């Protein structure tokens, strides 16, 4: 369990706990140091100083004692001596008190090991001297008492020989004084060192305190920054992410793995964004599907229209075919009669002219203008009649072949014948001012529905003719390529823009609605080609013309 996995509350508690621990530690440190300081001060106050004072008092007491003793020695008056003895006695008690005081202090200090070896040995030396000094005084006192009754004149000599004034006692007293001074000095120097120690402790405590304060401040700062980073930054990130999502950016992912409140918020956010994304994706998919279905529907509708048109056309063609067939049949007989009659008339005219020339001379015949003109007019008429008759016959033939389309008979056909037939059906009027160039290659016969294919040719050539306004050329080129037969129908017309080419095979494309609807748009042609397993390709350039390639597979 890492720190980031903790709840915010725990994190805060941890942080404040840390600060608390530091503060407690600091307090403990300070209290500990305070105790140490107190000890040091106590040491000075309850050990060194009182001992120093006791020794000083002792020194004073012993000095007084010596003064009293000397006064006692030098006083001749027995009464004064008596009162001095009382005072000496009191002084001894006083000194004893000082000694007791010092010794009890010393014993206390010995327990805390606060007595220097120097002090101990100095005191022992003092004690021994003091003992000795008292013995000397005792000796003198006893001696002087025994001599009291003797001559007072001897007093001076006794005094001069007194070991207390000069001699042993004086030396002892001097020793005691020096020893006690040394003691005071020793104690004071120890006290000084204790005070120095205390001061040092105080200084280090102060430094430690300053350091702890600095550490506490730094730690608090770090904790504050950390908490800010832990709480504020993720919240800001979350807010930014919310803004981004509200503006539609669903790809955003927070990726904040923490287990605290913010972490789980972030994860919920991620889940929300994800489900939004999925929902949108699904919607888009459905929309796509709908669009696809729509376009499929449209295509189906278009096909339906085309099929309907085709059916309509087929029916139309079927009835037209029947009509044409019967008309053609009906016309064929009289036309045959007309042609043969005209032929007979022509030949009869020739005979008539020959007969006439044998009757009258050629000059006469020539000179008779009226007769001559009549004869040649008749001859011309006969020729015209034959020509026109033949043309009618050929038209009828074409109509017959055209009318075959509804029969939907699959047969082997010469494509070139189909093309010629289409040109004839379109007629001179439609192709007025247009030069037809034929570049027919060697083609095998092709299996197809000739009627339908002819319709395609008529359709495309008719469109080509419409694209040419005054004069131009329509080229018909046929060739084979890789198992296919290609019929290129090119014109030098106005050409088409890319836009128009796109809608070329759409239903209802027809520039001129008033025409006989032989080609209901190129769509019919397209369908026919599809039926043959072939296709139509178009190349066009505005102002240069178009090329329609009808491509049929060879089977």
């Amino acid at each position, binding site marked *: 369990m890492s720190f980031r996995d903790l709840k915010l509350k725990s994190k805060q508690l941890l942080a404040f706990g840390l600060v608390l621990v530091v503060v407690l530690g600091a307090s403990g440190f300070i209290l500990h140091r305070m105790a140490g300081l107190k000890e040091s001060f106590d040491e000075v106050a309850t050990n060194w100083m009182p001992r120093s004072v006791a020794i000083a008092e002792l020194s004073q007491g012993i000095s007084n004692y010596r003064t009293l003793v000397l006064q006692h020695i030098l006083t001749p008056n027995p009464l004064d001596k008596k009162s001095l003895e009382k005072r000496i006695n009191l002084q001894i008690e006083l000194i004893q008190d000082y000694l007791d005081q010092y010794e009890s202090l010393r014993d206390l200090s010995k327990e805390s090991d606060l007595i220097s070896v120097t002090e101990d040995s100095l005191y022992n030396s003092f004690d021994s001297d003091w003992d000795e000094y*008292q013995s000397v005084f*005792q000796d003198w006192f*006893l001696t002087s008492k025994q001599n009291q009754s003797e001559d007072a004149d001897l007093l001076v000599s006794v005094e001069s020989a007194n070991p207390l004034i000069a001699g042993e006692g004086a030396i002892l007293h001097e020793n005691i004084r020096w020893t006690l001074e040394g003691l005071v000095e020793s104690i004071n120097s120890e006290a000084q060192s204790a005070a120095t120690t205390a001061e040092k402790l105080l200084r280090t405590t102060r430094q430690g305190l300053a350091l702890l304060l600095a550490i506490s401040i730094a730690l608090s700062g770090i904790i504050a920054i950390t908490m800010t980073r832990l709480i504020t930054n993720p919240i800001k990130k979350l807010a930014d992410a919310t803004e981004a999502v509200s503006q539609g950016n669903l790809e955003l992912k927070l990726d904040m793995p923490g287990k605290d409140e913010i972490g789980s918020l972030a994860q919920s956010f991620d889940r929300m964004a994800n489900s939004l994304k999925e929902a949108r994706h699904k919607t888009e998919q459905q929309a796509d599907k709908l669009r696809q279905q729509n376009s499929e529907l449209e295509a189906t509708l278009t096909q339906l229209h085309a099929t309907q048109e085709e059916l309509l056309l087929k029916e139309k063609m079927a009835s037209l075919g029947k009509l044409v067939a019967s008309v053609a049949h009906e016309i064929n007989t009289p036309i045959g009669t007309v042609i043969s009659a005209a032929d007979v008339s022509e030949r009869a005219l020739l005979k008539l002219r020959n007969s006439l020339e044998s009757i009258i001379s050629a000059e006469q015949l020539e000179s008779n203008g009226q007769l001559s003109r009549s004869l040649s007019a008749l001859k011309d008429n006969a020729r015209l009649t034959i020509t026109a008759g033949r043309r009618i016959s050929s038209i009828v033939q074409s109509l017959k072949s055209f009318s075959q389309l509804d029969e939907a008979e699959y047969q082997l056909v010469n494509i070139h014948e189909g093309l010629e037939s289409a040109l004839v059906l379109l007629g001179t009027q439609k192709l007025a001012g247009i030069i037809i160039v034929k570049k027919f290659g060697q083609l095998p016969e092709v299996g197809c529905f000739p009627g339908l294919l002819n319709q395609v040719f008529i359709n495309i050539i008719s469109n080509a003719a419409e694209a040419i306004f005054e004069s131009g050329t329509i080229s018909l080129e046929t060739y084979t390529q890789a198992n296919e037969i290609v019929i290129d129908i090119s014109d030098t017309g106005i050409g088409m823009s890319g836009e128009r080419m796109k809608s070329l095979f759409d239903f209802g494309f027809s520039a001129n609605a008033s025409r006989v609807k032989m080609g209901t748009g190129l769509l019919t042609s397209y369908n026919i080609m599809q039926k043959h397993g072939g296709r139509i390709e178009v190349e066009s350039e505005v102002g240069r013309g178009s090329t329609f390639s009808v491509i049929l597979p060879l089977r």
Partner: protein
Amino acid sequence: MIFLLTAVEILAGEVAIIAHPSVKTDSLDKKQLYNVYRGEVRSWKDGAKIKVLDLSEKGETRESFYDYLGVRPSRMNSLWMKQLLTGEGNPPDKAETQQDMVKKVMATPGSIGYVDKELADKGVKLLLLIDKKKDKDKDSD
């Protein structure tokens, strides 16, 4: 360790509290001894006057004796000084050496004194034996 310590103590010897042969009392305890030396008790059980003797020679024996009594020699001296000044009594007579002490005890009826045990065999009465205080112990006190 304990054996070693005991051995050292034995080597350090003992201090003998001795009295004039005429003294009827056979033994003294610590308190009785203290009271005698500080001048509180001045006569033996039979009424004979006690003559207290002190050693003026400083050293192990004197230190051990007063240490046993629980009083420093200087303190004892102060007590005697007071008695002397108030006229209550005189301080003990002084013996310069231990041999001197033995002689004085032998010579003075009713006297009491202290010497090293080794020296107390010349007809004096032995009242009490005290373990000698070791110098080393004293130092470490």
